[in-house]
């Protein structure tokens, strides 16, 4: 069954079809919330709220593409709003990190952990832009529509965020080299 068919059935009240939609999108929604908020418990709560909200708004969702757009938009905006109301994000504990470590062969888990932490250090709007670009693979125009942000602001966030992260990583590499050479 295609996502559009599942959507049609969910709109008609089929709970199992709604469950299928949740299964198809839960990783994306949860991960977006997790990398925005930095904590699993908060991310799960937010993901649950987003899907509950979706359940109430199913009639206004026109297609599977619209559904994906709606989920990203709501998750990103909710996360940004929450970050603006709450104190700064805590670092994820090493136990939490165990779930976040990539299992792709050849990847550097330490570098990837650093990158995830650097993303958490970005301002909420910049963080959302980076997440939508590198997790969701959206282009700047799609990101602009999702976040209701001018496209040049999106590009500026991307450029500056990458520069900041690159400088941080290079700085840490230099520090490590100096530490090894002494």
């Amino acid at each position, binding site marked *: 069954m295609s996502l559009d068919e599942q959507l049609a059935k969910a709109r008609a009240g089929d709970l199992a079809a709604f469950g299928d939609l949740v299964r198809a999108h839960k990783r994306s929604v949860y991960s977006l919330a997790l990398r925005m908020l930095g904590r699993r418990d908060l991310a799960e709560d937010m993901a649950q709220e987003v899907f509950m909200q979706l359940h109430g708004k199913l009639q206004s969702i026109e297609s599977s593409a619209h559904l994906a757009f709606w989920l990203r938009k709501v998750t990103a905006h909710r996360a940004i709003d929450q970050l603006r109301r709450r104190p700064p994000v805590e670092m994820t504990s090493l136990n939490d990190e165990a779930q976040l470590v990539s299992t792709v062969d050849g990847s550097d888990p330490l570098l990837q952990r650093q990158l995830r932490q650097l993303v958490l250090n970005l301002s909420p709007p910049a963080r959302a832009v980076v997440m939508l670009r590198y997790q969701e693979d959206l282009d700047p125009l799609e990101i602009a529509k999702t976040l209701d942000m001018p496209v040049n602001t999106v590009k500026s966030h*991307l450029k*500056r965020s990458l520069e900041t992260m690159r400088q941080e990583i290079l700085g840490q590499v230099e520090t490590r080299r100096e530490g090894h050479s002494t």
Partner: protein
Amino acid sequence: MIRRFMPVIVCVLLAPSLTFAAPNPRLLLPEFGALADKASESVTITLDPSMLAMAGRFLDSNDPQDAATQEVIKGLQGIYVRSYTFDQDYFYKQSDIDAVRKQLSAPGWNRLMETRSRKTHANVEIYIMTEGNKAIGLALIASEPREFTIVNIIGSIDLQKLHKLEGQFGVPKLDLDATKAPALNKQK
């Protein structure tokens, strides 16, 4: 008799021109239509008082970024931006910008700073127009090999409030005390 009243007569005759000589912070910005067509990216913004008021109504005071933006635009009567990015170096001519620069040599404008980088060939000039102790206009001209930008802000600009917006738009925080102007580059 006429000679005695000559100074008064001169003042009365000059009064209209004196009145109308008040400095105007609004620059005449070209539309750069032909350049815009060739630019890979362009930003053309014209916000007069009514549009600024409209924007103010749709800025959310509960959102820190919007609230800070509201503070900045409170005393403003206009914001005008022309910014163009090209795929090749110096696709634009200096004469395109000189027409604007010429207006900044008019009375009332003071150059706050000018910086030039030999390394990146970036050049930034910032001008302020003041009335008493208050800034009533700001003009910024930035040129790089593949980009030039002109910004003209009309109204009561509070550099402190503008400074508070740093980090909000994807631009990292400056390490600069907004109450002091950066050191002038005396290369010119």
